[in-house]
């Protein structure tokens, strides 16, 4: 093959149907006989005991065929398994108490959604209101209201993880820095909300159509809650899901709830989450209070860190939490070479909505803190922020690199990527611009942020939440793994169909798979039909299946490539038999099996397919008839967490280096992004256009968390951001004028194509890079950003207070030791 499809910006085959309104989303499911619609009654109280229900008026309302309440839930379902050992009973709806505004308390099923909502207003729930707590630090105080009586505290879980000898590192350090950070609670706002259709079949099978995305561990968890054997619960996922960014991994409690409602009502039931429900009670990342400590030598070498986290998971702990604390275990140290680390992670329950994976799952938090600390160290030592990072990066010759926390960084050249960012941003020139701007009294700042971008979670990381003693018990079943499956088959006319078991939410799997198979079989992408439509009854899947944690670019594509290669090998064996030559003399090239020597006849795929299908007699002895191959790809580096709490929490690790320049308006405190450069290393890039799309989206998502988005509650637990007038999502007009993207390519040695994931990308760096840039801009006032989002109003208050403290808001560089790259332009 002279020309490869991998690496080309092949147009997305999905886009024609999506852009012409002909996608197949859950709400577009073809009509199902006698379908009815659910409305969910939700708590208006942040915290209250449920004293009783009166559903008589609702049952009598027009069109209503069924009503279920927490009593039915408690009687007929089990609580979901949770990721901690504390006895948190999390059911698919409130049973004894409500613990956040928006928590489901009852479901009404009616002929249409309007009637269901009318009747939902008639459900009477008697409450005894209880005091609420929303702040994770306050929730741990002795006088705080306790959400779960059986737990007796709001601490759902706590782990202290020690790697190396942090005590000694801090004792012997020249410099120790401390800081407190706060990260906000925000989500993703996928353009399609949750949607479920549940139908009980006469044979006792429950069929659920939904935009479920995995991890597929949630399927057996849901089956258990409903009291069903796993092979009696069928999940079917439509071709198209309208985005998720991790949020839809938390749909499964609603699947149980709607399945129960359908069982009671005796009809198929459809529920499409509306926008208000989504903002109230879908899923989000955690808000976190973090205390960070950093120990360094005078030359800038970081020797150790301490992380103390309080992650706020809301009213219950819903799996896969507490991934908020432990998903990045393997990359806790980021791109830096220090060896000593202590992590004190508390998972706290408060009267807020529940949390779960949100693009970058916990990495936005991690790097916001770490990169903030690196800038403080640069300040402390009078070094440039680029230089301080260079002095601490893991070197390319150390790759593959085992981190002190058990991560296995498969490949990368971090200094080269940072250099690339410096060069693309023209960092020296930015510093000169800054000097000129400051001389004119402008608040101009430059931020830097680096991140190791983990992809393909190893399901084993979740066990880091458990004590090693618990994991050492003989009855404990260790957990590990990250697999995906694919089947490639060739029809009698030589056309290829590829069948996946993934749940794409817009990532373009069909396009990318066609590129890969075309390369492997010497065809063009148009020759390949790619079928997804996950169905747990017919597709190959396992615990870790699904489309999350940037998996597909790494694990799904690997399964596809290996399946195609298996099939290619079979074609070569078959052709060798037909040609009566040893297979070793043949090769697969340009869509045909040919002699390596170039002499003699060749057999095209089409020719071989026709013969193999039409005349099985022509197959060699022992060859299985049919032209299909299935591969299940898993990573050998996915191991269970060890006794020292080390775990390779992901399987492939990319890298991100970003530089941003901003200006803060002297009068209004509004932030303008002047330059934004983002350099990525995701190994082999299969489709550069799709990769760029992921980076744009990730960057905007990160910008949302940094400047706009927050799911806010007042101190009494009332929810304040229930509409898009209050919960602000950045739109195209908020995007930086230009996002300059560059790539470094360090192929992964662990995947057949060398590719890594890229789906979360800049969502995990933008909060850090913009916070650092704004801190740099406000350096003349001594302001450092430690909390997000940075709203103009909040920023202005900080600036005003800095002015009151005596730091006159005037251009001044006095006392700021950072050297300018070009001293001729510096102003002293």
């Amino acid at each position, binding site marked *: 093959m002279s020309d490869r499809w991998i690496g080309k910006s092949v147009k997305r085959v999905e886009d024609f149907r999506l852009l012409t309104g002909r996608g197949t989303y859950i709400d577009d499911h073809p009509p199902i006989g006698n379908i009815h619609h659910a409305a969910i009654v939700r708590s208006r109280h942040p915290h209250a005991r449920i004293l009783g229900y009166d559903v008589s008026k609702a049952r009598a309302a027009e069109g209503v065929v069924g009503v279920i309440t927490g009593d039915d839930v408690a009687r007929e379902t089990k609580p979901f398994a949770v990721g901690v050992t504390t006895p948190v009973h999390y059911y698919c709806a409130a049973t004894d108490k409500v613990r956040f505004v928006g928590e489901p308390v009852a479901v009404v099923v009616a002929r249409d959604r309007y009637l269901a909502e009318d009747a939902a207003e008639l459900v009477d729930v008697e409450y005894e209101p209880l005091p609420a707590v929303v702040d994770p630090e306050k929730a741990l105080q002795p006088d705080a209201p306790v959400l779960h009586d059986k737990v007796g505290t709001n601490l759902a879980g706590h782990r202290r993880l020690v790697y190396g000898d942090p005590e000694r590192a801090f004792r012997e350090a020249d410099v120790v820095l401390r800081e407190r950070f706060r990260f906000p609670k925000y989500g993703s706002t996928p353009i399609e909300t949750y949607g479920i259709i549940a139908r009980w079949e006469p044979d006792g099978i429950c069929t659920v159509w939904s935009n479920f995305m995995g991890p597929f561990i949630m399927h057996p968890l849901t089956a258990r809650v409903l009291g069903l054997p796993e092979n009696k619960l069928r999940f079917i996922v439509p071709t198209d899901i309208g985005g998720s960014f991790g949020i839809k991994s938390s749909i499964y409690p609603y699947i149980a709830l709607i399945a129960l409602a359908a069982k009671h009502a005796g009809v198929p039931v459809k529920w499409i989450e509306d926008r208000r429900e989504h903002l109230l009670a879908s899923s989000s990342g955690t808000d976190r209070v973090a205390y960070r400590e950093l120990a360094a030598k005078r030359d800038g070498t970081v020797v150790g860190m301490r992380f103390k986290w309080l992650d706020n998971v809301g009213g219950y702990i819903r799996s896969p939490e507490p991934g908020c604390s432990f998903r990045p275990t393997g990359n806790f140290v980021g791109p830096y070479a220090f060896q000593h680390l202590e992590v004190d992670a508390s998972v706290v329950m408060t009267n807020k909505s529940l949390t779960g994976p949100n693009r970058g799952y916990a990495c936005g938090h991690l790097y916001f803190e770490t990169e903030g600390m690196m800038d403080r160290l640069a300040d402390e030592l009078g070094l440039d922020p680029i230089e301080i990072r260079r002095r601490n990066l893991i070197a390319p010759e150390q790759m593959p690199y085992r981190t002190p926390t058990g991560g296995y960084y498969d490949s990368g050249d971090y200094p080269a990527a940072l250099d690339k960012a410096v060069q693309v941003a023209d960092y020296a020139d930015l510093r000169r611009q800054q000097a000129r701007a400051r001389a004119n009294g402008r608040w101009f700042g430059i931020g830097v942020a680096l991140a190791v971008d983990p992809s393909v979670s190893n399901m084993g990381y979740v066990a880091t939440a458990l004590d090693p003693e618990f994991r050492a018990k003989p009855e404990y079943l260790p957990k590990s793994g990250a697999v995906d499956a694919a089947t490639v088959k060739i029809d009698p006319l030589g056309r290829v169909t590829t069948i996946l078991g993934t749940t794409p939410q817009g990532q373009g799997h069909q396009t990318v798979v066609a590129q890969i198979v075309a390369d492997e079989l010497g065809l063009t992408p148009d020759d390949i039909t790619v079928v997804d439509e996950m169905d747990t009854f017919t597709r190959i899947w396992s615990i870790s299946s699904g489309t999350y944690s940037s998996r597909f670019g790494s694990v799904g594509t690997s399964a596809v490539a290996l399946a195609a290669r298996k099939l290619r090998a079979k074609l070569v064996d078959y052709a060798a038999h037909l040609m009566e030559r040893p297979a070793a003399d043949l090769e697969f090239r340009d869509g045909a099996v040919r002699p390596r020597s170039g002499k003699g006849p060749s057999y095209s795929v089409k020719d071989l397919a026709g013969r193999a299908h039409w005349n099985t007699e022509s197959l060699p002895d022992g060859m299985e008839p049919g032209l299909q191959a299935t591969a299940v790809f898993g990573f050998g580096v996915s191991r269970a967490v060890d006794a020292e709490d080390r775990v390779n929490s992901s399987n492939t690790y990319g890298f991100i280096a970003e530089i941003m320049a901003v200006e803060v308006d002297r009068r209004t405190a509004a932030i303008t992004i002047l330059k934004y450069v983002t350099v990525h290393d995701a190994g082999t890039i299969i489709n550069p256009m799709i990769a760029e799309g992921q980076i744009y989206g990730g960057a905007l998502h990160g910008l949302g968390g940094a400047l706009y988005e927050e799911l806010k509650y007042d101190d009494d637990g009332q929810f304040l951001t229930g509409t898009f007038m*209050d919960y602000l999502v950045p*739109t195209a007009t*908020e995007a930086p004028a230009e996002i300059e993207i560059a790539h470094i390519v360090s192929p992964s040695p662990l995947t057949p194509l060398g590719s890594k994931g890229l789906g979360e990308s800049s969502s995990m760096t933008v909060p850090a890079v913009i916070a650092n840039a704004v801190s740099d801009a406000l350096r003349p006032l001594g302001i450092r950003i430690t909390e997000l989002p940075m*709203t103009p109003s909040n920023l202005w*208050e900080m600036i005003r207070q800095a002015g009151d403290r005596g730091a006159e808001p005037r251009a001044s560089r006095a006392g700021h030791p950072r050297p300018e790259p070009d001293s001729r332009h510096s102003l002293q």
Partner: protein
Amino acid sequence: MKPPKFEYHAPSTLDEALALLARYNGDAKLLAGGQSLVPLLNFRLARPAALIDLNRITSLAYIREHDGHVRLGAMTRQRAIEFSPVVARRLPLLREATRWVGHLPIRSRGTIGGSIAHADPSAEYPAVLTALEGEVVARGPKGERTLSSGALFETYLTTTLAPDEILTEVRLPVMPEGAGWAFEELARRHGDFAIVGVAAAVWRSGGRVTARLATAGAGGTPRRLRAAEEIVERDGLGAAAIEAAGRRASELVEPDADIHASADYRRHLAGVLTERALKRAAERAA
């Protein structure tokens, strides 16, 4: 997010609409562009017995210059105002303010009458109406009356329009030849309701300066900043006078805090944006 049951009427004349309004005796809502009312219905925050849809009353959509005024029918879309040559020539301040109203799809549906009658104090049109000393025309069973901005806006989302009245027309005096104008606004995102917005117009005649200033988002109603206007009318449009007017503006407003901004920040912004609006308006003025 489905509305409760309501009756729906789509009259084709104003008289029919008035008759319907009278029939429901205060329990009907008028549907103009629907950009605020429809979300309120879907959230079940508004529960009228009936909706009276004005969209088929074509006689309510017009832009006419008449007798020193531009008359805009209540059902004139914001998008039509944005591209109206009459507005561009006679009311450039209104045109500039329109660019701050929502986004294209919102402006394509939203109407000037709907925006003003809804009386969101953060909206742009009520501020322009106030700054330009415009009037609205209201029709009721007893006939027609005109109201100034001061007489119309009571407080947040509340006007003095009677339940049986329909706002039919907005009248804005033509801005004098050579007038300068500016609409300054700060919102967290482009297209959001203003945290604070300031409408400004200035013109010189016979060596005297006339200034018009009004705010959006700095209190329960749009606020005319007469005392700030007086500073530049007295001292001219120099930098010092404009700065003083800005300082005065921040003293005049009585903003509230909400989830997006503190009251202090809004007060500060009212000053900054007044200063910026005056500066830009002065540069444009002949």
